[in-house]
């Protein structure tokens, strides 16, 4: 069958069972939009800014097991997309981005809306392609999807010049992909897995630390099974929340810069640390030298060999798909005859419970002024812990991560690696489209939300009943917190002046806006919002301006050097 390049693109998306493409049209992609218009299988979501298209497609992928797809035009379309692509790259999210390019003959001529998209995106994609021959479109898109979702996932960009999308070629979608240069290891090495199990069973102070890799590999079930069998303490990183049920007693809370006292102390003083799909990020272990100073054996399971021994030296590396390796560990554990050191484990739990009794997450609530932690606690109650929660970046992100107890994977969507302000609302859009009947809330702040506020319009057009919980403290809260603690209280440009009336702003887009000033009204407002199943509700909580996120490990400090509360200062 002979089709145009544009038709081939759409046929490929159909073959990949793509439900939604998030995008924004422009000159270089007109043929592709024309082909999109003439079919009904792949639906298009018109955003108001390309950055939001990438974020929404990214969230679609994060909240499901599928690949997110976005479509943007050349030049500014592509450059607007870059922040979104980098965000997905840093969190290893499977995505395919199709960008239009100026016609082949115009490439390099400084044509209108021309940029070197492949060059600009190279450092923030897993891979990218410039398709110069219409006959290569189908095989390239097949490769793009294959690369995006296998191995360590990531965004893949396919740049298609306008003339290529207009030319015709015989259409054939390959069934499989063979790439001699790309063969990610899936199965873990048997000998290494056995070694790991032996170490774990001998451990006196074991600790399990898991990250986004558990979510990406859909390994929450085998992880939970293994951790329960072993009876060991576990912590989930910011990217790994929901990998293990947060309400379970073996769960110690999140580790790291704003992690719990018990999680950080257990990480640091463990004698065997099992890291799964995590990467010893600077926000998780603090100063790597301080961390390495305490002797312990580290087992590290990861699909990406370059993640292993990158920041800390690993004793037992296991390269492989997390789910695969965990299932193998469970199988070996069931066959195992070696006795676990349960006495030592009981002593270790006693120590952990002592750390736990510090109750590091307590905060002083108030009848006068809304505390952000209280809003998140109520959000958790009102949604029964079942909602998809997206966040932007800053204090509100940390409070959401700390106080919303995620029991399931893929329910927590945030920009963990790049820390991109403005992801919150587009993430909620993508999650809501993927799960039309689910409760979706965006926890944000008055600064972050303004970075993609235009998407209120998209939400109206596509009737997305997301609930926006704006923790409004009239400050770039996290910046203000660092300035208060480390810059002598000189609040350089961290205030947010001349704010809009968010409730009215939401109303002007045709949504419902509610301003909440008093703690007593928080729960009622949340219940009201979630009872409106068809409406987007913008809750503008006026919160305590001086509240800080604790516990805190200052950047560059050791993991155990925690400030637990304002009283510690």
């Amino acid at each position, binding site marked *: 069958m002979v089709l145009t390049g544009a038709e081939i693109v759409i046929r490929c998306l159909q073959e990949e069972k793509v439900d939604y493409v998030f995008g924004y049209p422009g000159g270089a992609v007109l043929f592709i939009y024309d082909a999109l218009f003439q079919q009904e299988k792949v639906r298009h979501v018109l955003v108001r800014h390309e950055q939001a298209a990438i974020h929404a497609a990214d969230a679609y992928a994060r909240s499901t097991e599928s690949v997110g797809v976005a479509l943007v035009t050349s030049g500014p379309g592509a450059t607007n997309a870059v922040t979104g692509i980098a965000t997905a790259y840093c969190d290893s999210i499977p995505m395919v981005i199709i960008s239009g390019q100026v016609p082949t003959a115009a490439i390099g001529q400084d044509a209108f809306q021309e940029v070197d998209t492949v060059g600009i995106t*190279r450092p923030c994609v897993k891979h990218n392609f410039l398709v110069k021959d219409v006959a290569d479109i189908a095989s390239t898109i097949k490769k793009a999807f294959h*690369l995006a979702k296998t191995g360590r996932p990531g965004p893949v960009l396919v740049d298609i010049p306008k003339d290529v999308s207009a030319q015709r070629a015989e259409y054939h979608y390959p069934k499989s992909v063979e790439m001699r*240069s790309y063969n990610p290891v899936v199965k873990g090495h048997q000998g290494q897995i056995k070694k790991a199990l032996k170490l774990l069973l001998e451990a006196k102070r074991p600790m399990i630390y898991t990250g986004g890799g558990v979510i990406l590999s859909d390994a929450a079930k085998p992880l939970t099974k293994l951790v329960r069998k072993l009876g060991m303490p576990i912590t989930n990183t910011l990217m790994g929340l929901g990998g293990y049920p947060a309400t379970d007693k073996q769960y110690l809370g999140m580790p790291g810069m704003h992690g719990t006292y018990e999680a950080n102390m257990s990480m640091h003083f463990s004698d065997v640390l099992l890291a799964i799909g995590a990467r010893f990020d600077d926000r998780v272990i603090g100063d790597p030298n301080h961390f390495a100073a305490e002797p312990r054996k580290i087992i590290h399971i990861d699909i990406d060999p370059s993640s292993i021994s990158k920041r800390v030296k690993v004793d037992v590396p296991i390269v492989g798909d997390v789910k695969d390796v965990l299932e193998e560990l469970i199988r070996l554990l069931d066959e195992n005859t070696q006795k676990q050191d349960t006495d030592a484990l009981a002593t270790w739990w006693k120590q952990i419970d002592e750390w736990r009794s510090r109750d590091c997450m307590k905060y002083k609530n108030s009848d006068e002024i809304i505390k952000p932690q209280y809003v998140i606690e109520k959000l958790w109650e009102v949604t029964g812990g079942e909602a998809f929660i997206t966040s932007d970046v800053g204090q509100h992100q940390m409070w959401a991560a700390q106080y919303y107890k995620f029991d399931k994977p893929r329910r927590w969507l945030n920009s963990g690696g790049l820390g991109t302000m403005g992801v919150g609302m587009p993430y909620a859009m993508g999650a809501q489209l993927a799960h039309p009947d689910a409760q979706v809330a965006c926890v944000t702040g008055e600064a972050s939300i303004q970075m993609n506020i235009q998407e209120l319009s998209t939400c109206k057009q596509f009737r997305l009943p997301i609930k926006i919980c704006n923790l409004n403290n009239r400050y770039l809260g996290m910046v203000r917190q660092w300035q208060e603690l480390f810059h002598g209280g000189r609040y350089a440009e961290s205030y947010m002046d001349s704010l809009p009336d968010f409730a009215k702003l939401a109303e002007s887009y045709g949504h419902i806006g509610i301003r909440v000033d008093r703690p007593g009204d928080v729960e009622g407002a949340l219940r009201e919002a979630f009872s409106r199943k068809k409406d987007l509700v913008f809750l503008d909580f006026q919160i305590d301006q001086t509240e800080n996120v604790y516990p805190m490990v200052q950047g560059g400090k050791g993991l155990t050097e925690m400030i637990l509360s304002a009283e510690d200062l």
Partner: protein
Amino acid sequence: MRHVIALLIENESGALSRVSGLFSARGYNIESLTVAPTEDASLSRMTIVTTGSDDIIEQITKQLNKLVDVVKVVDISESAHIERELMLIKVRATGKDREEMKRMADIFRGRIIDATDSSYVIELTGNQTKLDSFIGAIDTTLILETVRSGIVGIGRGDRILKL
């Protein structure tokens, strides 16, 4: 430590910038980098000379392997190997310097591949040290122009880097 990394990469446009971009983005050193297609035109072979601690070299090879276009990576300096570099050097060759320059070229087993009445172009191959020694041995004020190819390297004996 100095390491010589050899790799096979799909011979596609942009392949070189993926490798050089990786080095600059992650702050790794490149002392020299050479690239050309192999007997199989779909594959290019690169030789990269770099320096770094063992940990850094381990990361470099892992990160190179992670590039989708890279087919194989070997640190050939880990075992017996041969390194060669080509240098073309244009020198002033007049009066008594003319005979002296010819003599030096002979000693280093170089060849004069272009001669005018006032200059020679000498072709010299060898490892880095040999080329450095040649430059050190002649009167540097006579050097008009130097071009060096960067190192190419290959493992000795049975050590073969092929698909």
